[in-house]
């Protein structure tokens, strides 16, 4: 991979991390009046997959969608304004954190129903096939979505019709507080692919290079008409399921497990790797951070100073024009 793309992946991961840390810090002021689900610790999955997508490719995210929106090139100012439920938000304050959208870059809306986005992304892939174009769809979902019928129904359909879709499962092992093993037989998500007739892989979702490698090949197969792929990325969320709470310790996730995954921080690992390669140095890291802090400041200031929707807009957009 060329040097500029490596740096871009690093920058995207860092952008996701710093934006979400700022959201985390601002949440206590109660101006972000919408449920938030942070991806801190899971940045490599979105960054590694989206780096290979074109602007006109589609992605579908979930309730935990900030990372995917950012990685696909969604407008940051509009995203933060959406979290503040302002009229200038990406969904005009109608969606909130769980419903991010930016049609200009192929983000057609994220769903807060577990597994609900999987058919939609399968549908845009069907459209690409029927329209005869080479646009690819990437659908992101968690391990909990593999419990849902939509996962199975959609994979079957996509394989049957050889659709240009990549299913990216961000397996962070927990659906709220319920461990994967309380809901599924051990180690079975990526294996579903085989029976549905598509390629399936389980990879280290905290290694952005590995994610990027598998995603690149899967996306290329889509463009060549070779059908869908399921990529299960093992990763870990650092924060609790919702809001800014921590859910580590007694009754929640084991401290040792949490510590292990924090030691595998995807950004730290990648920056060390890039430093060893001579691609990244302390000065560049500092410059990237400064640029990101500038973007964040601009986005939060834009959001906080934006108008809220007016009550007379309530009935708008129930039906399309």
């Amino acid at each position, binding site marked *: 991979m060329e040097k500029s793309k490596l740096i871009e992946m690093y920058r995207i991961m860092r952008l996701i991390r710093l934006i979400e840390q700022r959201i985390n810090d601002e949440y206590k002021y109660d101006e972000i009046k919408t449920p938030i689900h942070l991806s801190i610790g899971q940045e490599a999955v979105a960054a590694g997959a989206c780096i290979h997508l074109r602007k006109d490719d589609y992605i579908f995210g979930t309730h935990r969608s900030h990372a995917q929106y950012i990685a696909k090139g969604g407008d940051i100012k509009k995203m933060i304004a959406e979290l503040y439920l302002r009229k200038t938000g990406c969904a005009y304050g109608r969606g909130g954190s769980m419903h991010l*959208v930016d049609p200009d870059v192929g983000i057609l809306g994220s*769903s807060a129903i577990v597994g609900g986005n999987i*058919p*939609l992304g399968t549908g845009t892939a069907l459209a690409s096939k*029927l329209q005869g174009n080479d646009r690819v769809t990437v659908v992101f979902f968690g391990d909990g979505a593999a419990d849902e019928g*939509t996962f199975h*129904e959609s994979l079957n359909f996509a394989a049957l019709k050889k659709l240009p879709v990549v299913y990216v499962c961000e397996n962070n092992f927990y659906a709220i507080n319920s461990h994967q093993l309380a809901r599924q037989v051990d180690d079975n998500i990526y294996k579903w692919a085989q029976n549905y007739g598509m390629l399936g892989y389980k990879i280290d979702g905290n290694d952005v290079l590995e994610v990027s490698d598998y995603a690149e090949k899967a996306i290329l197969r889509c463009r060549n008409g070779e059908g869908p792929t399921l990529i299960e990325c093992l990763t870990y969320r650092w924060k609790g399921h919702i809001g800014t709470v921590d859910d580590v310790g007694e009754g929640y996730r084991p401290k040792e497990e949490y510590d292990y995954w924090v030691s595998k921080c995807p950004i730290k690992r990648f920056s060390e790797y890039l430093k060893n390669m001579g691609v990244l140095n302390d000065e560049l890291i500092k410059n990237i951070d400064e640029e990101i802090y500038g973007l964040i400041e601009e986005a939060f200031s834009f959001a906080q100073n934006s108008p809220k929707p007016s009550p007379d807009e309530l009935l708008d957009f*129930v039906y399309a024009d």
Partner: protein
Amino acid sequence: MPWTTVQVEKLDNFFISGDFTGNRILSYRDALHEAMDQSLARDPRVFIMGEGVDDVAGVFGTTKGLKEKYGANRVFDTPIAENSLTGIAAGAAMAGLRPILIHARMDFLLLSFDQLVNHASKWCYMFGGQVKVPLVVRTISARGWGSGAQHSQCIQGMLMNVPGLKIVAPATPYDAKGLMISSIIDNSPVLFVEHRWLYKTTGYVPEELYSIPIGRGVIHRRGEDITIVAVSYMLVEALKAAEKLQQAGISAEVVDLRTLKPFDEKILVESVEKTGRLLIADTGCKTGSVASEIAAVAAEKAFHLLKKPVKRVCCPDTPTPTSDVLEKAFYPTAEDICTEAVKLVKE
């Protein structure tokens, strides 16, 4: 032969003149076929998917031969996965296509509520109109010949409570064709409610493409004494009832709203203003039905015009029984409409 086909073939050939006259007579089934055929020809974005849509029976004849004519990319069979298929069709619509998804039984629609209600119907609002879902979901209710509790439901009432979803229920061949075309060109998801017992019904249908505005009802028979609003197949029973009422000296006005949501409140209120009495005949179970909603609107907007309380003629709040004896007791008929209408007018 499938059992509902046996049943439908036994029905009388009921002719509805509608608000269009001409010399071209088509069945409801053929009118639907023609609407889809012409839409596939006119717009390359239109395609049809659903269980069995390309088989020899072609969804009771409504899609027959379309795959041969337009190819397997435009008309194709699907796995039996109603929920995801609804989402897949919605996703294709978001990407600019105009899918027609078909559930051969309305009962199967229940499996698709997550994608229909949580996703397709909400997308436009949730994202401020930036992503549109021009999707048509055809759903066909059956009846009779022991269809039973899971192959005969008319659940349009449940779906009245879903913001963002338009619901049409044409009862005549003319309306079937015109509303199918309107539904296809509409930019919102439209639930297209059909009834198997209407398939053999005939009426005048123009050959050319035409659309009927969604949200506009029609008066099928003018009258002075009572307004009968009929939903879907109940139009046939209502027209038969009106004929009998005429012989009994009662002049009934028969109104078909055609679109159930958003429905034509004006035509309802104007008719009640004239007659002062309202009977609503619906194909579904009574509680929370389309009839209930029509009655509620009448109470809100036409209470001062009513001389008598509103009467709903619906199926009782039970699952559909399979026994032919119980089935007969379950479904309201023209006779029931007559009896209730006479009570409203004479008592």
